[in-house]
């Protein structure tokens, strides 16, 4: 409890003793609990506006509980227990967030994962280049071969070129995963910020997402030169099986315009 009190003071938010000292309940006034809670909420609003940091809620609840005294009805006791459970839940969540080591996730795990994915793209690109080099070398030898043999070899190299397009698709899929990792990073930041921003020194603005863009936009694509706002939603990259439409579907769709 001492550490939490210190945290509250560090946050520059005084939400402990004042509530208890100034509470009607502490003076022994027999007022309904609901009215007392409404008073506390009005008091908090007057001090801090409508937004109270989530991490401060536990302190507010503690202060509220500390101010309760006098005869309690069964309903009051039930509410008291629920509020007490809420305080316990918030403390537990704070501890779990701290145990996550968000700094490690942000500074080590996510960059490492992104680097590994970049390495996959680079190695597949290099391997694809080698395969294409070999196929082009075979094509260079077709001149002078009998027509039948040349045609069969050309067909084989065509299949090699077609198969090499996997690298483009793989690259785009990996890019999507990297964007997802960035989104996870932002969410981890947001979670930590909601509980104890000052203690963790979390930056308030994410450099990965331009102001005003939605989460969906951050997950899908980035605005490019001259893009209309709605164009960003069209940048989704390769779709999974079952989601992507086939070439036949594309042809049918285009035919409707004719």
């Amino acid at each position, binding site marked *: 409890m001492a550490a939490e009190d210190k945290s509250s003071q560090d946050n520059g938010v005084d939400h402990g003793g004042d509530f208890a000292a100034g509470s009607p309940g502490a003076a022994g006034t027999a007022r309904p609990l609901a009215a007392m809670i409404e008073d506390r909420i009005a008091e908090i609003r007057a001090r801090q506006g409508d937004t109270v940091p989530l991490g401060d809620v536990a302190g507010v609840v503690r202060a509220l509980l500390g101010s309760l005294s006098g005869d309690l009805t069964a309903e009051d006791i039930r509410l008291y227990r629920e509020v007490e459970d809420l305080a316990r839940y918030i403390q537990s969540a704070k501890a779990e967030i701290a145990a996550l080591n968000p700094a490690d996730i942000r500074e080590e795990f996510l960059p490492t994962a992104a680097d590994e994915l970049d390495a996959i793209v680079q190695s597949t*690109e290099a391997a*694809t*280049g080698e395969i*294409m080099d070999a*196929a*082009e070398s075979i*094509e260079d030898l077709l001149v002078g071969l009998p027509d039948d043999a040349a045609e069969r070899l*050309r067909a084989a*190299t*065509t299949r090699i*070129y*077609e198969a*090499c*397009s*996997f*690298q*483009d*698709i793989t*690259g*785009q899929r990996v890019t999507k995963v990297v964007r997802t990792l960035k989104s996870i990073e932002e969410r981890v930041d947001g979670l930590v910020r909601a509980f104890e921003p000052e203690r963790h020194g979390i930056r308030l603005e994410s450099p990965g997402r331009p102001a005003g863009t939605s989460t969906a936009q951050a997950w899908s*694509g*980035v605005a*490019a*030169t*001259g*893009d209309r706002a709605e*164009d960003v939603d*069209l*940048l*989704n*990259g*390769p*779709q999974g099986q079952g*989601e*992507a*439409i*086939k*070439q036949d*579907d*594309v042809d049918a*769709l*285009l035919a409707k*315009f004719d």
Partner: protein
Amino acid sequence: MAVDKNMRVLIVDDYKTMLRIIRNLLRQLGFNNIDEASDGSAALQQLRSGTTYGLVISDWNMEPMTGLQLLREVRADAKLKAMPFIMVTAESKSENVIAAKEAGVSNYIVKPFNAETLKAKMVSVLGDF
């Protein structure tokens, strides 16, 4: 009218591998005059450079200028607006096809694709060859 295989084709993609694949497939189809660009803005610069192109084959998802924006710029340009334009992209949702069609795309190929599809779409846009 027979297709002139000596026409200059501009292929636009930010993946070097894909540029190389399309170049090789075009070469196998008999088209050897091929230029490349890595995004829409570079492509637009080439298209406006004075070189005469007979076909643009473009990816969609590129930065800084996408293939969709390139298509709109081409269709809005008095000198380029009739340019045959085939989109070759992994963007495979109906709304993408509709957006491209509304922007004036000549045909649309979903990646990954094969040489047969490429040839069929070129024939539909340019005529038989």
